[in-house]
C-alpha cells in the first residue's frame, strides 16, 4: 500500500489550460491572449538589449558562485529600493527601510505574507481588490492569513468602482491589512487616477490600515518609472509606512531569473535592522539564500548609467507598443462597424485588459476564431501584434454585434 493513496489530483491551472488548448489548435490565425509575458510585434519573446549587455559585462567579470547573503545582493536591493521610492525619498535617504531580495514577485509577496503572519498580531485579515491576481489568495492563505475583499472593478463600466471601493474600505476594521496594486492592476488594467489615490491614502490613514503594495509593472504600465511609482511614493510621503513587493519579471523581461524584492518602510534605521533580522530568519528555512543571476543583471542595469538609460527607453518601448495595440484594437473595432463603447480598452493600462466579454462570447471566440483568453474576458495585450489586431477586432465584433 502507498502513503499517497488518499492524495487528490490537484486542479489543473486555469491559465495553463488556455495555453494547452492554444497549442493543440491547428488554425493558422490562432492567437494566444492568455500569455502573461511580453511579446514583440512578431509575437516573440523579447530579451532586452540592456539585459544582453549586462550579461556580457557580468560574464567578463568572471565572478565566483559563492552564496549570496540571505537578504540577497546588496547592490540589487539598494537599487530596487531607490527605483521604487525615488532617489530623493526621505525614507530612502534616511535608511529607514529594509529591502530583501525575493524570488520575483511571488517570492517577495510570500516573504511579506509570512512576515505579517508572524509579526503583525493586530489582524489576520488581508483585503484584496475584487478581482485581484489569482495567486494572491493562495499565497496569503498558505502563509496563514485570511482573505477579505473590497469592491474595485465595475463590470458595468469596465472601470474603477471608486465610490464602492471607498465605501468598503471605510468599513474595514482598523489595523487590517489592505493590498493595493501600485499600477497596471492585474487582471483588469484599471488604475485609480492620482486624485483618487490621494483620497485612498487619506482613507487608509484614517482607518489605520497596514498597506501592502504589489508593484509588478513599474515602468511597464505608462512607460515612465516615476509615474508608475507615484502612488507608492505618495503614500510614504503621507506618513504611511507601507510594505512593498517588486518584480523585475516584466519590466526587465527577467521572468525565469526570478528577480524581485520585498521592502518594509520603518520608523527608523534601527527598526529596519531588527525587521531585517527577522526577515532573514523567515527566508533561511525557505531556500537559504536567493539566486544570483537575475539580481546581478538587474543590479548591473540599475547601477550603470548607460545601461539604465537604455533600459528606461526599452521599457518605454514595450509600454508604448502595448498602448498602441490598445489604440489600434479600438480603431479596428470601429472600422468593423462596432457600435459598442470600447473606451475602456484604451483607458485601461498595462499588460492586461478586461474586455467586458461574457463567458459565452469568450467561448465563441475560442471555438469559432481560435482566439484564446481566460473565461473572465481578460486578454493579454502583449499577445496582440500589428499583424493580428485586425483579426482580433473582427472576431470580437462578430461575437458582440
Amino acid at each position, binding site marked *: 500500500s502507498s502513503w499517497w493513496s*488518499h492524495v487528490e489530483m490537484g486542479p489543473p491551472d486555469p491559465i495553463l489550460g488556455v495555453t494547452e488548448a492554444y497549442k493543440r489548435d491547428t488554425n493558422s490565425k490562432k492567437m494566444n491572449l492568455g500569455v502573461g509575458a511580453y511579446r514583440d510585434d512578431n509575437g516573440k519573446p523579447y530579451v532586452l538589449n540592456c539585459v544582453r549587455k549586462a550579461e556580457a559585462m557580468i560574464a567578463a567579470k568572471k565572478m565566483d*558562485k559563492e552564496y549570496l547573503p540571505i537578504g540577497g545582493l546588496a547592490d540589487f536591493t539598494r537599487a530596487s529600493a531607490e527605483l521604487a521610492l525615488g532617489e530623493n525619498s526621505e525614507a530612502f535617504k534616511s535608511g529607514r527601510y529594509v529591502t530583501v531580495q525575493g*524570488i520575483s514577485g*511571488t517570492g517577495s509577496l510570500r516573504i511579506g505574507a509570512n512576515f505579517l503572519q508572524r509579526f503583525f498580531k493586530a489582524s489576520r485579515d488581508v483585503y484584496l481588490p475584487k478581482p485581484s491576481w489569482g495567486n494572491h489568495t493562495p499565497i496569503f492563505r498558505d502563509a496563514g492569513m485570511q482573505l477579505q475583499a473590497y469592491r474595485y472593478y465595475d463590470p458595468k463600466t469596465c472601470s474603477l468602482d471608486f465610490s464602492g471601493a471607498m465605501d468598503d474600505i471605510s468599513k474595514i476594521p482598523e489595523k487590517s491589512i489592505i493590498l493595493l496594486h501600485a499600477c497596471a492592476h492585474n487582471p483588469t488594467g484599471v488604475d485609480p487616477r492620482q486624485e483618487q489615490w490621494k483620497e485612498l491614502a487619506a482613507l487608509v490613514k484614517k482607518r489605520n490600515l497596514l498597506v501592502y503594495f504589489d508593484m509588478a509593472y513599474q515602468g511597464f504600465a505608462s512607460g515612465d518609472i516615476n509615474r508608475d511609482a507615484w502612488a507608492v511614493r505618495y503614500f510614504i510621503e503621507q506618513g504611511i509606512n507601507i510594505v512593498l513587493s517588486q518584480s523585475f519579471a516584466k519590466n526587465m523581461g527577467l521572468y525565469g531569473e*526570478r528577480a524581485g524584492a520585498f521592502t518594509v518602510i520603518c520608523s527608523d534605521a534601527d527598526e529596519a535592522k531588527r525587521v531585517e533580522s527577522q526577515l532573514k530568519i523567515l527566508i533561511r528555512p525557505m*531556500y537559504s539564500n536567493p539566486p544570483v543571476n537575475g539580481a546581478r543583471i538587474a543590479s548591473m542595469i540599475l547601477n550603470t548609467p548607460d545601461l539604465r538609460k537604455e533600459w528606461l527607453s526599452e521599457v518605454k518601448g514595450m509600454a508604448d507598443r502595448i498602448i498602441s495595440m490598445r489604440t489600434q484594437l479600438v480603431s479596428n473595432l470601429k472600422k468593423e462597424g462596432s457600435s459598442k463603447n470600447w473606451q475602456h480598452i484604451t483607458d485601461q493600462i498595462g499588460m492586461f485588459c478586461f474586455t467586458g466579454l461574457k463567458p459565452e462570447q469568450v467561448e465563441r471566440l475560442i471555438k469559432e476564431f481560435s482566439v484564446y483568453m481566460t473565461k473572465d474576458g481578460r486578454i493579454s495585450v502583449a499577445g496582440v501584434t500589428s499583424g493580428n489586431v485586425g483579426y482580433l477586432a473582427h472576431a470580437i465584433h462578430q461575437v458582440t454585434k
Partner: protein
Amino acid sequence: AYRTDEGQPWVLPVVKKVEQMIASDNSLNHEYLPILGLPEFRANASRIALGDDSPAIKEKRARSVQCLGGTGALRIGAEFLRRWYNGNNNTATPVYVSSPTWENHNSVFMDAGFKDIRTYHYWDAAKRGLNLQGLLNDMEQAPEFSIFILHACAHNPTGTDPTPEQWKQIAAVMKRRNLFPFFDSAYQGFASGSLDKDAWAVRYFVSEGFELFCAQSFSKNFGLYNERVGNLTVVGKDADGVQRVLSQMEKIVRTTWSNPPSQGARIVATTLSSPELFDEWKGNVKTMADRVLLMRSELRSRLEALGTPGTWNHITEQIGMFSFTGLNPKQVEYLVKEKHIYLMASGRINMCGLTTKNLDYVAKSIHEAVTKIQ
C-alpha cells in the same frame, strides 16, 4: 563551500564552458520555466540520484520538482508531508533529525508546520563514531509513521556515515516500523568522488521498496552555490500516486516562488545530458573530493607523527566537507583566540579550509590545544 589549495572559491571548468555555451546560444531567452522546473534538469537530476537503471525510473514512479537548492527541496517536501502525509494536515506527525544535524533542518520542518521535532541518536562523542545502537533504538521507539531525515552521505556536521551493513539494519527497522525516509543528499559525488558510491543508501532504500523523498543539492558538487539548484525526487509505489503527489507539490510551489530560477538548472541539464560534459563534470567532482581526501590523510598523519594525544583515525574515516574533530569547546576557543584558526564550537572543521600551505600550522596548533588544554 569548497576551496582550492590556494584557499580560493572554484568555479568548475565544465561550468565555465557550459555557461559560455548558454551565453552564445541566441535561441535561449529568459521566459518562465514550468512551475515544476526545467524538464531536462529534473529527469537528469533524478537519474543521478537513483541510477540509470533504477526500476523506479523505468516504472515511472520516480519524479521530481526543481527547487531552490537543497533547502528549497527540503521545504517543499516538508510542506507536502505536513499537508498530505499520515492523514491530512497532521502537524503532530513526529519528525526526527539526527543529533547533531544541520541546524536548518529544524527550522525547515518547524516553519512547514510540524509541531513535534525530535532527535535521534547519531554521534557518539566518546568513540567518535556512529552510535548505531542508539539510532536503531530510537527508530524502534519512534511512533509509527514518524518521518526520519537521513543524510544520504557525508553527514553534516559529523562527516560520519553508516556503512552499507549499517544502512541495511536501519532500513530493516524503518520498514518494520513504517517510518518515512526523507533523504538529504547535498554531497553526492563530493563525498567519495564516486556518484554511485555516494548514492548507495538512497538506491538501497529504493530497491527495498520504500516510498521516499530525496532532497538533492547541486550547490557543492557543481559549485553552483548562488544559483540555487536543487531537486526534490519523489519515489512512490505507483506512477499514478506520484503524479498526484506532484500535482499537489505544484500548488505548494506556486505560492512559494511560482517557478524556479532558470540559469543553474540549464547549466546542470546541459552538463548531465551530454556524455562528454558529464564525464568532464565527474572529473571536476573527483578533483574536489580527492583534494579533501588528501587533506584528511595529511592532517591525520601529521597529528600521529606529532604524537598528539588521542586517536585520529576518525579524520580519515569521516567523509565529506566536515569533520567532527572531537576537540572540546575550550580547545576550540584556544585555536580561535590564540592561533586564529576558525572552527565551530562543536569542534567541527571544514576540511576545505586546509591547504598544503597551512597543514603544518593547523596540525601543530591542534597538538598544542590538545596538550595544553583538557
